[in-house]
């Protein structure tokens, strides 16, 4: 066998290995993209529910205003927290892969939950407000939206987890590093007590 033949065989082998490596790289890249799209898409479900909550709050505050005489700053705090959360929400919706924006949204949502909890506590002192039909209906709807948010959050976190795992395991970690696949942020509400707060009202 001539040395040319050997050389060609070696080159062919290298080519084959290169081809397999290239195929694998494309596959790993596509898998990462697919998983990233999946968690971005599941944010849409949280998004819908959060929006609904932002729509409910002004009505709730409007009704409460008619009854609450003292501690009116609680009402203002709720509205301020709402608009803060809406700003953060807008940024997170624009790009769910932005971990910073997601953290901001979580913090703002935590504050909103806390102020809502305080409002409900204050409302306890006003029996007329508790008896108000609209108020009862609104807070029921708020609780149900809360449940839906947490269900959507669970789905979102599962999707984020699948993406983050794929991003970190060997060997796709190389592809993730090379093409700058950023770690995604889990959506968690830190203050559990604050999140629970709206639920205890009127039950």
């Amino acid at each position, binding site marked *: 066998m001539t040395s040319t033949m050997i050389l060609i065989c070696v080159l062919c082998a290298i080519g084959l290995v290169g081809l397999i490596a290239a195929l694998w790289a494309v*596959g790993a890249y596509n898998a990462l993209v697919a998983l990233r799209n999946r968690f971005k898409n599941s944010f*849409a479900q949280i*998004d819908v529910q959060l929006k609904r909550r932002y729509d409910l709050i002004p009505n709730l505050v409007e009704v409460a205003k008619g009854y609450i005489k003292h501690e009116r700053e609680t009402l203002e705090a709720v509205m301020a927290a709402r608009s803060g959360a809406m700003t953060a929400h807008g940024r997170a919706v624009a790009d769910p892969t932005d971990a910073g924006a997601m953290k901001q949204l979580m913090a703002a949502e935590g504050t909103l939950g806390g102020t809502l909890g305080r409002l409900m506590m204050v409302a306890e002192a006003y029996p007329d407000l508790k008896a108000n039909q609209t108020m009862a209906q609104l807070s029921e709807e708020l609780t149900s939206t809360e449940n839906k948010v947490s269900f959507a959050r669970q*789905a979102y976190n599962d999707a984020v987890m699948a993406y983050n795992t794929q991003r970190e395991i060997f060997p796709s970690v190389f592809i993730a590093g090379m093409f700058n696949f950023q770690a995604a942020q889990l959506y968690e509400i830190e203050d559990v007590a604050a999140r629970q707060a709206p639920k205890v009202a009127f039950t």
Partner: protein
Amino acid sequence: MMDFFASQDRARRNSRRLVALFALSVAAIVVTLNAVAFGVMSQDPTWLAHRLDVHLWVTFGTLGMIAAGSAWKTAQLSKGGSAVAAMMGGRALAGASSIPAERTLLNVVEEMAIASGTPVPQVYVLDEPGINAFAAGHGPSDAVIAVTRGCMEDLSRDELQGVIGHEFSHLLNGDMRQNLKLIGLLNGILLLALSGRLLLRLLGSGTGTSSRRERGGGNAYLALAALALLAIGYIGYFFGTLIKAALSRQREYLADASSVQFTRNPDGLAGALKKIGGASGGSRLTNERTEEVSHMFFADALSSRFLGFLGTHPPLPARIRAIEPTWNGIWTSAAPPSRTAAVVEPATLPPTPRIRSEQVVGRVGRISPDHVGFGARLLAALPAALTDAARQPYSARAAVIALLLDQDDAKAAPQFEVIERSEPGLASEVRRLRLIEKPLGDGARLPIVQLALPSLRQMSDAQRGSFLALIRSVVDTDGTVTRAEFVLAHLVKIHLDDRPSAAPAVASIRPLLPDIALLLTELARCGSSDPARASTAFAAASARLVDQGLQLRMQPNDARPEDIARALDRIAAAENGVKRRVLDACAWCVANDGEVTPSEAETLRLVADCLRCPLPPFLDQP
């Protein structure tokens, strides 16, 4: 007009022709490559001694590479429609969206799905200004419909309906499955070209460092081989595209015609096509992966086709004239329409007419404008609290579970306990929705499931698993499983499980006899607790099947749910001729007096859906 089974068969025949043409072009590539190898070798006498080895290497190397490329892509696409939508960067619309343009689009899709008896497909939006759309998936369970932002925002409701009707026709005709197959196969040939390019590039970087004459000589041969690979790969791809184009264009005319037939409104579809012609972006897409999937789109997605015979779509004017022969050739500018909600009177629904059992099969997969109108009216007639609930994953679960509960409150109590134990919040949601669903009657069962399915698919795998487990325990808790409950639970399960069925496509009834007997037995027994009446029903059904001396016996009463599920899956995978006859037998089993009552109609529609034969609601006019 072909019936459902005939058009599915046509798609399968087309697929077979496609595979044959593909095999032909692969053979041509292998022969050409060998010829090139021979030409190179004949320059150098030392090579001729190894001639046979080289030819074997070339042949099997090429075949292996094409096979690997095709298999890889096919595996990638096995995840179905959502994989394609994700590949194209689609954004999934939440069913509960309240943005006007999104709401209109979702409503149009929901109406069409209810009209045809298929689950509502997941809707995706591609962030592209051009006006275009596609449907993708293996079948109704994993189907998605994707439209561009331009399509969603610039088209009026009627035009949108025309486009969606076109896509539903692809969905019902089995074109989608063929599309996926095509993408997979062509990828094998494309891979050949890509590896040629890769080889050339590697050699290009190698020659710079090499100074040995001998190596340079080897490189020259290799470069020649790589060039040949590249050229041949692209020639193969060219032929592949040609095949794709030839098949695709014919289907587009068919889908246009079907769309007009579904909506009885040629102006809608023609208007959409005219807007594409008038829009600056036309129907073009900017995504770099468009080439791979160009044949699935509503209109030509690639920029300026200078070669007409390579176009995957007929020219726009020809398509418009096919619908509207008197067209004056003037395009419409694609200005966003004013969004007015469609005026649908929330009238009560017409009673389901009684039809004859033998008419059932002919109605599979056939929609008329009346059905589309019915879909819209039904959607309007459903209470808003219910449609809202069905459009989001959390409460969609409750909407489905509420359908599975016993009608009798006392018997439903233990079922509520099961739900309460697994998730208290869900139990109260189920209670609320049960009160809404109860007065709606049997006719609303399937539409509620159809509406809920895309939301349910939004769940994560873990959530999906626990939901299916909950359904199973709710159904098991019940002492008396009715026909509808059983089939409904199975239906939800198969539509949530997006793996394509692994069962073989059987072409004759004989190997499926045990499965058919089991299915008919269950249907007969669920219909009546009286053994005599059950066996009458079974006899009526088997009379439709036994013309070839086949023997069907009623099965013992100890069938496990898994067995029945497996039987349904096997029948669902069978060839159309078989499914047609089985469904006909089911129609006689469910309605053994030969007349299908409204509640029997619902059961039949559920069974048909399990067999992947979408059966539209029964209206007076088929």
